[in-house]
């Protein structure tokens, strides 16, 4: 029993460690004093001011737009690529997967500067477009890595059976293969979306002047002091995601426990 309590305490400590900064940010979002060094009383004014701050709202819009487009495009390209990669000969497959892993294993700073050098030499105008291309690039590996295991488990006979029974290749794919892959595709999409949302380093090197995501905006604000509206915004984002996840996670859990009973 004692060891059991010790185990729980250890997990508790680690979660304190992981969530303490998040708690701090949430507290700061209600802090009436403008500096984060002292507590000036409870207020919700930063939440109200947030909706008047066009620069932050624009950065939020850019971040969301980039994350959404990048993860959708990466999911489509990645899933289609998975089908092709599975049908490759072993040696070519190893090569392609090796190249796919590069953006994941390589340091973000190297990926960032390599893309920056590419865009400069191609004469691209730095802005939303270059950020988007970079995000799609580092999102694709996450999609491929989560779809691939599902693809390996797939029984190829079911797809062929569908074709034999008269389904077209596209119809057969969406009716037979796609539902099997869906959990992998969804987790790949979610992973890509999260990575794109949280990215700073690659965006830092591939963004143009005047275009900001939340990360790059926070980075430029570091020296001047972070605007409290930013704390309010991140609290709102965090709580929204938390509530969504709790809702999504509750339903299947309930079903499972009912079945067990």
């Amino acid at each position: 029993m004692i060891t059991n309590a010790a185990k729980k305490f250890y997990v508790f400590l680690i979660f304190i460690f992981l969530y303490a900064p998040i708690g701090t940010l949430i507290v700061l979002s209600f802090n009436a004093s403008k500096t984060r060094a002292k507590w000036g009383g409870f207020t919700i004014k930063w939440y109200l001011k947030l909706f008047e701050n066009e620069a932050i709202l624009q950065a939020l819009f850019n971040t969301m737009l980039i994350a959404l487009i990048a993860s959708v495009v990466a999911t489509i390209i990645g899933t289609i690529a998975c089908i092709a990669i599975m049908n490759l000969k072993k040696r070519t497959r190893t090569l392609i997967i090796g190249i796919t892993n590069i953006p994941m294993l390589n340091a973000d700073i190297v990926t960032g500067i390599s893309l920056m050098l590419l865009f400069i030499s191609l004469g691209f105008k730095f802005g939303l477009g270059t950020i988007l291309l970079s995000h799609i690039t580092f999102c694709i590996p996450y999609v491929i890595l989560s779809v691939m295991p599902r693809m390996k488990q797939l029984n190829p006979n079911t797809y062929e059976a569908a074709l034999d029974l008269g389904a077209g290749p596209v119809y057969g794919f969406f009716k037979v293969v796609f539902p099997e892959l869906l959990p992998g595709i969804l987790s790949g999409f979610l992973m890509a979306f999260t990575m794109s949302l949280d990215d700073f380093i690659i965006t830092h090197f591939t963004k143009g002047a005047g275009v900001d995501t939340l990360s790059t905006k926070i980075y430029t604000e570091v020296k001047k002091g972070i605007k409290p509206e930013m704390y309010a915004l991140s609290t709102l984002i965090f709580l929204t995601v938390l509530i969504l996840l709790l809702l999504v996670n509750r339903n299947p859990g309930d079903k499972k426990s009912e079945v067990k009973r």
Partner: protein
Amino acid sequence: MNKKKMLGIPYYFWAAMFIVIPLGMVFYYGLTDKTGAFTLENITAIASPEHSKALFLALLLSFIATIICLLLAYPLAMILCGMNVNQHSFIVLLFILPMWMNFLLRTLAWQTLLEKTGVINSVLTFLKLPTLNIINTPYAIILGMVYNFLPFMVLPIYNSLSKIDGNVINAAKDLGANNVQVFTKITLPLTVPGIISGITMVFIPALTTFVISKLLGGSKVLLIGNVVEEEFTQASNWHLGSGLSIVLMIFIIINMVLSAIFDKDGEGSVL
């Protein structure tokens, strides 16, 4: 069959254009000078006292951070695995959830926590304990690294632990192994892929970070990542920056080779 292979063409094009060619450009810039002539100067520049100090410090701090992550994560993963949480995804979510709060803000929050009159010191003073003055020192950077990259150590270890067949452990116990023997002879060897994958996922970003050192180290501590970043954004010496990146990539490649040797089937991947 041929049609299926054609499906890969958009991705192959994408990978060539945005993964292979850009890396080639880093090598091109790193191995040439401003006139375009071949030179090794940008690479040997790492030997200059200023650069080698930054590299050595980065190696040291990321090494310590990786060890701490491993020591914290392994017991945690074992406990989580033994807790019989029927939803694998829930554990993963708890570790991914913090990522939805911006990485820079989360790291900045440690300033508030660690400051001389910050939250932690207020609590310590209240408890009549000596205060902790680690902000703007290398210790704060290690803390920031551990904080940011711990989930990347927990998840692969947790994954490889949860794949261990309980019967193997029972068999070992039936054959007379005690708990320590079960751990050293069965559990630990079977989780090597997860450990290696975790080490890679923590060590590389920690080694190359420039953000954590900037936010928590004040401007006093310069890591190799900071040097490279400044060459690109402030000094605009892309040749030198690329040369130093090539040096960084040598460490990355060593790490990749190690993980390829120990983790042949990609068993220890985060997903």
